[in-house]
């Protein structure tokens, strides 16, 4: 076959597939959101934003992202540096730390439910220590802070691994010479981390943060398992609109809002962590 045509033939299936199942639905969801049967309208958005649960679910989603992502970033950087210095047992430790990468968010929610539910392990432990006589109902309206902490812990537990993997791979690409040079000039481990590792890790940090932030605004199953209706989030509202209310117009409007938030933060991260032109490792 003609060598000039071959690459196009090879990429044609992916391109066609993504056009039909990624770009086209993207267009459809916008169409659904902006129409109600008789032409262009903002009614869906007005209805969605006016609903009493909207500000709460918006606030909850943002609070959760704000609480979870920085902790995950710090934790994954710490874990990556720890594993980087390791001589023995590196593979085993990395396997254990990346286990949550393969675990569904629904399963993660259920796992933390085992700890936080009324007859769960946290209550059992508190009872064993003599702190409480009767099990407390942690995941209820009376204990919204505990609900939030439980969801936060489950999210940190589940999704730190994805950042860890990207950062470990990124650190592996940094040439050792930079560290040796820094050491010769007497830089402390902390100085080396701040002045060598972090700047050179920028492309990896970019990818890790984008993936993580987008996922953070998509949070759904963990919340459904742990909070249910006590802790409404945006994705749960979409699900409710689509199923309980059978209104695909309002569901699409909410979906567009989540998409807009995701794109906004992706652009911010891309800009904040951009690699200067011409600078390579």
């Amino acid at each position, binding site marked *: 076959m003609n060598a000039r045509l*071959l*690459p196009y033939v*090879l*990429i044609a*299936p*992916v*391109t066609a*597939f*993504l056009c039909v*199942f990624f770009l086209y*639905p993207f267009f*459809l*969801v916008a*169409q659904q959101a902006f129409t109600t049967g008789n032409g262009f309208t903002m009614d869906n958005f007005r209805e969605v934003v006016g609903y009493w649960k909207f500000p709460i679910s918006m606030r909850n989603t943002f609070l959760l992202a704000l609480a979870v992502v920085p902790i995950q970033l710090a934790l994954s950087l*710490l*874990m990556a540096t*720890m594993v980087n210095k390791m001589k023995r047992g590196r593979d085993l*430790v990395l396997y*254990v730390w990346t*286990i*949550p*990468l*393969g*675990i*569904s*968010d*629904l*399963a993660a929610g*259920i*796992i*933390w439910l*085992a700890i936080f539910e*009324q*007859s769960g*392990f946290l209550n*059992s432990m508190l009872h*064993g220590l003599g702190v409480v006589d009767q099990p407390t109902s942690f995941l209820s309206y009376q204990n919204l802070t505990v609900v939030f902490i439980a969801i936060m812990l489950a999210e940190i537990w589940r999704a730190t691994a994805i950042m860890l993997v990207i950062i470990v*791979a*990124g650190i*592996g690409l940094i040439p050792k010479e930079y560290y040796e040079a820094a*050491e010769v000039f*007497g830089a402390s*481990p902390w100085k080396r981390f701040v002045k060598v590792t972090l700047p050179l890790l920028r*492309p*990896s940090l970019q990818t890790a943060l*984008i*993936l993580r932030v*987008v996922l953070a*605004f998509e949070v*759904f*199953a963990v919340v459904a398992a742990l909070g249910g209706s006590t802790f409404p989030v945006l994705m749960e509202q*979409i*699900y409710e609109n*689509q*199923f309980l209310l059978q209104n*695909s117009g309002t569901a699409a409007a909410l979906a567009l809002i*989540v*998409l807009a938030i*995701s794109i906004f933060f*992706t652009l911010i991260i891309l800009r904040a962590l951009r690699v200067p032109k011409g600078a390579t490792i």
Partner: protein
Amino acid sequence: MSDATVSEIALPRAPGKAGRYVYISGVVLLCAWVLIPLYLLLVNTLSSPETVNSFPKSFIPEFDLGSLEFFTGFSGMLVALKNSIIVAAITMVLSILIGAPAGYALSRFDFRGKELFRLLILLTRAFPLPLLALPLAVLFIRTGLDDTAFGLALVHTTLAIPFSVLITFSLFSGIPIELEEAAWTLGCNRVTAFQKVVLPLILPGITASAIFAFVISWNEVFAAAVLTIENRTLTAFLLQTLSESPLHLKFAGGFILVVPALIFIFAVRKYLFAMWGIANR
């Protein structure tokens, strides 16, 4: 003065005893942080339904299969399990068949539009893709794909394709083109050279990326819940019965969700970092 500087430089190479203990206990603590919640889920799964609902709980499993028996006996559960496997298997095959040729094209050819194509691939990763299940639900009803394993697999393939393209790209890049060129001079054409030289080398990596696609589909909750009604997958089934199902059913279900993930992550652990390292650039 000079002594102090020397010891400061030597410090990171041979950290003090106290520093070592802090380091080791940190690693152990973080391993426990990942493993203990998993262990607690196991305890609940291997306990009888009565024990799971009782208080206080023992931290040691009683090795009773009652909960798992209840799970397999629960109406619709085994069908859901079967659906999950079918959807994940279709996703696995589709994402490799469609994605691998593009990965090959990216690694072997320079062609016009290559950067644009890469951008399209990277863009899909920075998107909350499950949201696109909403418009597709409408589209699928029109085309008769609604509530079918194949329809859902198509959406899951959109999720898996960016990974399969980037992973196969990195795998093919790891094989020097000289090997292929040597085969051409020895009488192979492009296709036979690929079959006899590249394919055997690439097969383990392809398997790993196929497994990764399987796990992505197996774990996905939102699109599965939106697109299936009668033929629900395991995640969709568990999600929709969350509010009414008894605790032991949730925990057994969560456990069944987790097990394949553990095995898969173990199977692909060698490729995990290569996959993500390259996926950055």
